């Protein structure tokens, strides 16, 4: 499965993610870096004097619980993609066996 083009694609993604980390190395949330853009938009709205009229029914009680749920979300996705691609890969190698390749 591993081919050079796929590795290049993933390497490019890694570079895109690493560049900002290197650019702002040593700076953190306290200096205003790496916060979420959703939250930044919320702050900008509150600056206009708007009061949110409804709040979330349930919020993750801590950052740990939030990262648990995010990891769960990604894991569900990864299991499904892995399962289907594995199944397709198996089908393909069966087909190749039959045709004597």
């Amino acid at each position, binding site marked *: *499965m591993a081919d050079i*083009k*796929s590795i290049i*694609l*993933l390497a*490019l*993604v890694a570079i*895109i*993610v690493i*560049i*900002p*980390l290197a*650019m*702002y190395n040593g*700076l953190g949330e306290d200096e*205003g*870096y*790496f*916060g*979420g*853009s*959703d*939250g*930044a*938009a*919320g702050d*900008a*709205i509150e600056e*206009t004097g*708007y009061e*949110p*009229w*409804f*709040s*979330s*029914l*349930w*919020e*993750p009680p801590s950052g740990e619980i*939030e990262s648990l*749920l*995010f*990891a769960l*979300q*990604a894991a*569900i*996705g*990864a*299991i*499904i*993609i892995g399962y*289907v*691609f594995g*199944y*397709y*890969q198996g*089908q*393909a190698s069966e087909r190749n066996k039959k045709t004597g390749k």
Partner: protein
Amino acid sequence: MHIMEGFLPWEWCLLWYLVAIPVVAYGVIRIKKITDENPESKPLLAVSGAFVFILSSLKLPSVTGSCSHPTGNGLGAVLFGPAVASVLAAIVLVFQALLLAHGGITTLGANIVSMGIVGPFAAWLVYKGVMKLNLSTSGWYASIAIFFAAFFGDWLTYVTTATQLALAFPIPTMGEAFIKFIVIFAYTQVPLAIAEGFLTVFIFRYIMKLRPDILEDLKVIFPKIRETIKAVG
């Protein structure tokens, strides 16, 4: 691109719900029709949904110094059409609104419009447009088409969010508000949209290699492309 719970006046919440509901309903009908006509495409539908699940959970740093996440909506839009991608986005947005306090139930309609309708529709248009130009019949041409589809699907999702917020909060003027929200969302998103483009090509190439027959049945690629893939692989 999540507009937080309660952060839109109720009139806007209602309006975006009215836009989103018919599209999602049509998407459900489309899913039924596509899977009836072509049961073999079901696993790819699952992959498209799973791809949205993964990508929208990854909050990545951007060169602007803030973090945001890709959307993953381009793949589903190209494979199954924008309405089906709306359904996939709606599922993820409900999950995130209820369990993660990202986005919200009141703003769900607005978030479906950006991530589930405008983004996928743009992705689908870009893909169809590039394929229609038909400059080449090789597999890499389809890969380039899907790269741009995913890029615009992601980026226009965020431009839509900025527009929605500028419309709801035109303070001091609509133009200035638009620039303010574009700076927050759209600049940050450019490198992430490029990353999403690469990841979508990565997944798409495997599908093209393993099951080009399903892609042909869904009219995503043409038989000529399949011949060139075979010749190479």
